[in-house]
């Protein structure tokens, strides 16, 4: 554009005349980069299996998008990082102990069925990585809920299975959680650092928050969805989460455990599947938080972030339509009559 303007000073063209450097690929690769600390933490805690599982996810996601587009003679966009991001997010949502066909099937479902069959990037109703995980969880419920204790060493040969903090909270209560982690402070610190059982990428809250802060700084995500999501969940956890009654819950444990940080900052904020208007995003976040806590406290599953985001994805167009700002100067029809 700039060189053109120099050589032909009087070029007449339609807008836009000034272009930003941003592109889909740039945003997607930046988000991938922001997930890197959490990925490294997962490798540190869960060993080489973290690399295999996540790598398989990314590879399958990339290849299935590439092959699908090639086979149907479509424009090949598999290099724009969105397939890699889907694979990476799916990998971070799997337990480290899964057999290797699970990441492959999950990535295929995520990319081909959830995204490509609906028309490709920008047309999918649901978050691809989450549909991939929901498919896997419903298909192999046993294999998908074998959680391995983090070893923090590459040499541990026999992985020890255990329950996730939320699983313990659901099945055995707060007292048992304290027994496992010691006192409250050590519970919080292991949740923050990620020294607990869980999906690969969700455990280390601090690494995820570093990535999220980077995205917030780059303005690729805004505070609206994460804050309203986590805020609502915290309030509900505090009000109803306690066993002893009203107002005795532990919001911090609820926020830091499970996939809430990963979900709120990296999955719910997916541009395609969340509302585009700020006010709508806040409603979206509140819905996500409320459904998450409803499932965690009253539902059959210990964790509800995934289903909460998927359910709210359905509502995103509806929310957008109802919070759309009015045209400046437009008058409501009723008032006109007066």
């Amino acid at each position, binding site marked *: 554009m700039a060189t053109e303007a120099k050589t032909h000073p009087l070029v007449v063209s339609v807008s836009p005349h000034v272009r930003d450097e941003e592109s889909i690929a740039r945003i997607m690769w930046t988000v991938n980069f922001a997930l890197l600390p959490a990925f490294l933490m997962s490798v540190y805690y869960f060993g080489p299996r973290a690399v295999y599982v996540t790598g398989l996810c990314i590879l399958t996601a990339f290849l299935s998008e590439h092959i699908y587009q090639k086979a149907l003679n479509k424009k090949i966009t598999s290099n724009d990082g969105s397939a890699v991001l889907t694979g990476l997010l799916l990998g971070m949502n799997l337990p480290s102990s899964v057999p290797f066909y699970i990441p492959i099937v999950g990535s295929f479902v995520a990319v081909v*069925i959830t995204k490509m*069959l609906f028309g490709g990037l920008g047309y999918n109703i649901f978050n691809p990585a989450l549909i991939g995980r929901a*498919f896997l969880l*419903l*298909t*192999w*419920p046993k*294999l998908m809920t074998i959680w391995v204790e983090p070893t923090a060493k590459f040499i541990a040969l026999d992985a020890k299975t255990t329950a996730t903090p939320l699983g313990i909270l659901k099945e055995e209560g707060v007292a048992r959680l304290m027994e496992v982690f010691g006192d409250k402070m050590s519970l919080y610190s292991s949740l923050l650092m990620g020294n607990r059982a869980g999906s690969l990428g969700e455990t280390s809250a601090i690494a995820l928050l570093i990535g999220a802060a980077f995205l917030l700084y780059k303005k690729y995500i805004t505070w609206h969805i994460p804050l309203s999501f986590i805020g609502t969940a915290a309030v509900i956890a505090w009000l109803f989460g306690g066993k002893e009654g009203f107002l005795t819950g532990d919001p911090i444990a609820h926020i830091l455990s499970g996939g809430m940080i990963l979900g709120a900052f990296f999955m719910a904020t997916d541009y395609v599947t969340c509302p585009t208007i700020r006010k709508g995003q806040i409603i979206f976040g509140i819905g996500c938080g409320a459904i998450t806590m409803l499932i965690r406290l009253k539902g059959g599953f210990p964790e509800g972030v995934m289903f909460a985001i998927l359910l709210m994805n359905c509502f995103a167009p509806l929310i957008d339509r109802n919070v759309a700002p009015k045209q400046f100067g437009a008058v409501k029809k009723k008032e006109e009559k007066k």
Partner: protein
Amino acid sequence: MAHTHKTNWELIKNGMFSENTIFKMAISLCPSIAVTNSLKNGFFMGVSVIFVQTMVNLTVSLIRNFINPKIRIPIFMMVIAGYVSLIDMSMAAFARPVYKQIGLYIQLIVAFASIFARAEVFAVKNKIIPSIADGLGMGIGFFLAMIVISFFRELLGKGALWGFPIVQGNPLLIMVLPAGGFFAVGLLMGFFNWLDARMAAKREAAAAIETA
């Protein structure tokens, strides 16, 4: 009264393929998801629908000259309900284990859009033999759709067919859950549409060669 000009064989084929209840018209999708989690259920459901559809078309066609158009819907309803009760009670008596699983949906045949639609758009306007052919075609079309869907769902979801285990290992459990029903119907519908488009393109190409 607009009589059909198609031959009986064309009518049967029409119901089976080009106006297939599930894959082409996309009506009566409720049973195609609810009862297709095993081949056995799908088979019995399909057979019941063939019977009800054919007999309803036959009866409506028989009495078509006596039906006052203003009250045709209640009359169709009574005819359908009669045959559904018949198949419901016979199934309850002779196929108890299957009936326990799909009994509710057998009773729901009363409200099937496809059966109503054929009585309304075809049987009430046509003679008896074409109406039977149409009902048979529609019924067989539904039956085939149920068989195809339940074949894939049971094979993938349980690794079995008709209750007999075939494949070992961890099956795709989601395929026998309701969500898998939507997956199966959607993907098969897409596949058949793709097949249709291909066949149409081939026919066009062949016609183009002939004219050239």
